């Protein structure tokens, strides 16, 4: 366990800030893609770190801190979606390329931008599974554990996501 983690566990906010600075890009990227909305991604990123601070005492170092934090981010993002019922609103937003995350617009070009847009246009469940499996490299059993869906549902959603993306990118 790194010195920053140990100090943060003891309640040192400066140490936690070091952890924030080291991981915020990764967490924001995930939240941005899961939410399909830059403002919401900022909220989710903040909530993730606040949640991590509150749970730091439960971090035992069995996995890397980044992995632990990533799991919290997934949970925060999925809980927000379930809790606030923003599903339809987000899909509607994501379907309009002009409303896609500005950070993503600034960062990506050409084919990569097309893919970002296409991912943002996926239904939320399919989007989450695609991101976790094909972008982040999780396996279906891990996604099932992480998101609370059945392993078979994860496979089905991945199949659906890939088909929808292929259609969107070859239009």
């Amino acid at each position, binding site marked *: 366990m790194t010195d920053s983690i140990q100090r943060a566990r003891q*309640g*040192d*906010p*400066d140490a*936690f*800030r070091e952890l*924030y*600075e080291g991981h*915020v*890009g*990764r967490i*924001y*990227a995930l939240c*941005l893609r899961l939410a399909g909305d*830059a*403002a919401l*991604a*900022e909220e989710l*990123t*903040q909530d993730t*770190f*606040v949640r991590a*601070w*509150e749970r730091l005492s439960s971090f035992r170092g069995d996995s890397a801190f980044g992995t632990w934090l990533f799991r919290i981010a997934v949970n925060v993002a999925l809980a927000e979606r379930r809790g606030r019922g923003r599903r339809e609103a987000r899909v509607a937003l994501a379907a309009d390329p002009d409303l896609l995350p*500005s*950070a*993503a617009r600034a*960062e*990506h070009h050409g*084919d*990569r931008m097309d*893919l*970002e847009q296409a991912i943002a246009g996926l239904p939320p469940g399919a989007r989450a599974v*695609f991101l976790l499996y*094909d*972008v*982040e490299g999780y396996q279906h059993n891990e996604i099932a554990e992480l998101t609370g869906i059945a392993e078979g549902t994860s496979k089905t959603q*991945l*199949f659906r996501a*890939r088909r929808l*993306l*292929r259609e969107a*990118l*070859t239009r």
Partner: protein
Amino acid sequence: MTCDQFDLLLDDYLEQKLDPDVASEAASHLATCAACRVRTGELRALLEAATTLPRDIQPPRNLWPGIAAQLAPRSSRTLAWTRWAPLAVAATALIAVTALLTARMTRHDTVVATGPAPATAHPVTFDADREYALATEDLERLLAERRAQMAPATVAVLERNLALIDAAIAESRTALAADPANADLRALLWGAHRQKLELLERATRLTRS
């Protein structure tokens, strides 16, 4: 093997998850079917592209102040759910409570005047006041740029509420300066900062939608 059957196996074929016999059958079909080769190429390109997406994207603004604002004091975290509560009511209530505590503190001062609290009595682990101020400065700047997008009535309500909260912050700071060890006052100051931050965040979000 038909094209429909191949299509169902395509993902597992590319990921090399098929049994050898089935994989061999799929390969045979692929060798003779141009349409399925196109589909296979599309999926392969998609999967390769997915691995090239940046895993790290920096947020457009510094999110730390908003996070730090919720880390201290830990026990005040439960106030975060009030984010969407009517802010005017919250600010007014805050001022009322601040005034009450200030009065209580003033009375307390007369008792402890001969023996000031030791500096170690208020273990502030980092400068939350400054963190809050930095956070609100960023948002105030952003909001000023976007003010033209807001209806005049909205601007008026916003400014009225900000003035109320600013008054609460100023009052809390003054009281805290006189009684640095007072944890209640410190919590009130942070609460007022948090109210301001949330109001500003909410207002800037309105200009984005």
